[in-house]
């Protein structure tokens, strides 16, 4: 029990083990990871001179110069930014390349220096538009609040690219809710901007649920929509999805539905008269979300006549929301005859929601023919619910078909 000479004892072992681990085992176990990490210029002190030479060297590829600039801007070395600034200032360099290098400054570690440089660039009217636009974007990413006045000025610049970058940078900088809503409206209503930027602004306005978005969204809803043709191959399919995402009226319709303001219904309804395809679907979707009573006749017609199953689905959803017994004939017909299971599903749920006891027989007849499990489940659910209502007439919901017809 007593320590012998030379015996390290428990305490000795206790101290020895961790020291041994940290000094000998740990580096060996992790050596491969450390070695790999050191390959990355960002993780170890970088060779600023060598990398600076690469950025400056016009014989190097654009890709090498842009990515090396990205490494330099992440360095705290006081000399690291100068070669990057130098290339950006060189008028003989391709403006597109310079703009790409300006965008790398959005991750600059030496924020104060980068911000000062970017502000100079933004205010230099001799610089190419794309370079100044990139400077505005990087200022926003760096959180350069001191440059807010300049960005506000350029947010109304005659050059669309600079205008968009400056407005977007202001959004990055924060601001009050009202200011942010105003910026989104400014981008949305600026028809010189690309569709994806305006569509994103519409999306943001919908999410904010600010009533101030109602009028501008209703205005752009009337713009011409890209008539996206039915895709004939996967290539066209991808292209159609990209086009749908950048379509401003479609984005406005989605946003108006999300906004939840019933005052949007008239403009949405008016647009259904001329809209086709995916925009028409978005309009009915928005009307369904708003539970727009004035859209009842349009929905009754659409669920029967519209060629697009997406439109018929949303027309059925709208009729389900409105629970108006006038629509029962169309809903019953949809359950019996519509070729799209999604329409049948919404229609049968609508009949259940409206406690249409007269639909029991037609649902019983449709059930064995139904192929899709979700629709079968909805039909079984409706039969259970409606049969109970038949057995106990007093339990039927207000507005049910037998009460009102």
């Amino acid at each position, binding site marked *: *029990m007593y320590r012998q000479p030379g015996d390290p004892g428990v305490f000795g072992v*206790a*101290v020895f083990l961790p020291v041994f681990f940290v000094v000998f085992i740990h580096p060996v176990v992790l050596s491969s*990871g450390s070695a790999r990490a050191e390959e990355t210029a960002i993780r170890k002190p970088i060779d600023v001179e060598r990398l600076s030479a690469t950025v400056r060297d016009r014989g190097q*590829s654009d*890709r090498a110069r842009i990515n090396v600039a990205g490494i330099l801007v992440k360095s705290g070395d006081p000399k690291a930014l100068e070669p990057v600034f130098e290339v950006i200032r060189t008028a003989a360099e391709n403006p*597109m390349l310079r703009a790409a290098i300006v965008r790398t400054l*959005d991750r600059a570690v030496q924020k104060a220096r980068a911000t000062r440089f970017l502000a100079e660039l933004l205010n230099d009217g001799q610089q190419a538009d794309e370079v100044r636009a990139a400077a505005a974007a990087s200022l926003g990413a760096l959180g350069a609040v001191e440059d807010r006045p300049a960005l506000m000025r350029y947010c109304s610049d005659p050059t669309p690219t600079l205008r968009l970058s400056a407005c977007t940078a202001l959004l990055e900088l924060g601001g009050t809710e009202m200011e942010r809503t105003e910026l989104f409206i400014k981008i949305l209503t600026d028809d010189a901007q690309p569709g994806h930027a305006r569509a994103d602004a519409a999306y943001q306005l919908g999410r904010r649920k600010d009533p101030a978005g109602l009028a501008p969204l209703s205005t752009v809803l009337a713009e011409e929509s890209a008539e996206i043709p039915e895709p004939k191959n996967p290539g066209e399919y991808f292209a159609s999805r990209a086009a749908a995402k950048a379509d401003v009226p479609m984005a406005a319709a989605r946003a108006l539905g999300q906004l939840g303001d019933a005052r949007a219904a008239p403009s949405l309804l008016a647009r259904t008269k001329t809209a086709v395809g995916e925009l028409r679907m978005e309009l009915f979707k928005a009307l369904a979300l708003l539970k727009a009573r004035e859209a009842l006749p349009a929905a009754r017609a659409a669920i029967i006549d519209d060629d697009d199953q997406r439109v018929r689905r949303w027309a059925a959803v709208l009729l389900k929301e409105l629970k108006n017994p006038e629509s029962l004939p169309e809903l019953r017909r949809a359950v019996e005859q519509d070729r799209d299971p*999604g329409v049948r599903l919404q229609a049968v749920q609508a009949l259940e929601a409206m406690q249409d006891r007269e639909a029991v027989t037609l649902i019983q007849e449709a059930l064995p023919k139904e192929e899709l499990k979700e629709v079968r489940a909805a039909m079984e659910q409706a039969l259970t619910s409606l049969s109970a209502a038949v057995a106990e007439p007093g339990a039927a919901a207000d507005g049910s078909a037998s009460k009102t017809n």
Partner: protein
Amino acid sequence: MKTSKQNIHRWACSLLGAGLFVLCSSVAWATESAEVGIRPHNNAQGDDLVAPYGHFAFSGGGAPGPWSTVFTVSNTTSTATTVNVKCYNEFTQRVGPAAGTTFTLTAFNMNFYTPEALGLTTDPLFSGFGWCYFAVTAGDSISVGVGTGIRGIAGNTTIFGSNNSRAIAMDTAQRMVTTDDGSVPFWTKQASWTSYLLSINPTTTARSLTVNIYDDNNVFQGALVTTLSPRDLDMLVISSVGAAAFGTADVKINGRGFVGWVAGFNSASLELFLYGVPLYEFETSALAAGDRP
């Protein structure tokens, strides 16, 4: 008493030693982790995975269609694993059952899941294009294959059970998002090819995405800059930028939240390719329970 004191002394020393050991090793590991990051290697197996899907009516090359995705979900462990799948359309809207679709796979078992099986296609919000989040809610990890193509047999939901299927490509779901950058090793618009970048932000924070596009000589062709909203899927036509016929691209994002795939389609031959965008290994972050919808 003496023996008791010795025991206490011994226990105290042991505890101190164990504490020092844990402290030193954890500090060392933490330092190393921060420096090295998670070494991802192959990132296609885990508890939280994401993948894109597509589904639209299209017949081609003698196949009746539709052109659709099939997920092959595989339990990679010896315990039963329960998986919950929640999907979105490309407008950040949830599609399918509100609670998602949940299923259990027995040990090392696999199964096929189509947009129909996941309850997506009857949802009015289904646009035919979107992405799914696979979350293991009980058990251990899974891997998910993402097959896509034109179905070869009418009414059959698999693209793999028929010689008639066309334009088939396959990749896997991914579990890592980048916090900084990734690269597109190849895109093309040669002949009848078109190349697309499918960018997903599975997180709840909006991000700004920049794609720098180069030709095969690394000459800069231009940049695509876009915002990825929370739970967003964006489709960028890489081959629309510049005049080059093929090349590479670099992807930059301003924080945690990008995972992507490149899809190429040849409209003449109906050939298709699909691959996950390689992410820079020291700037990746695994999707986790906190990211789940």
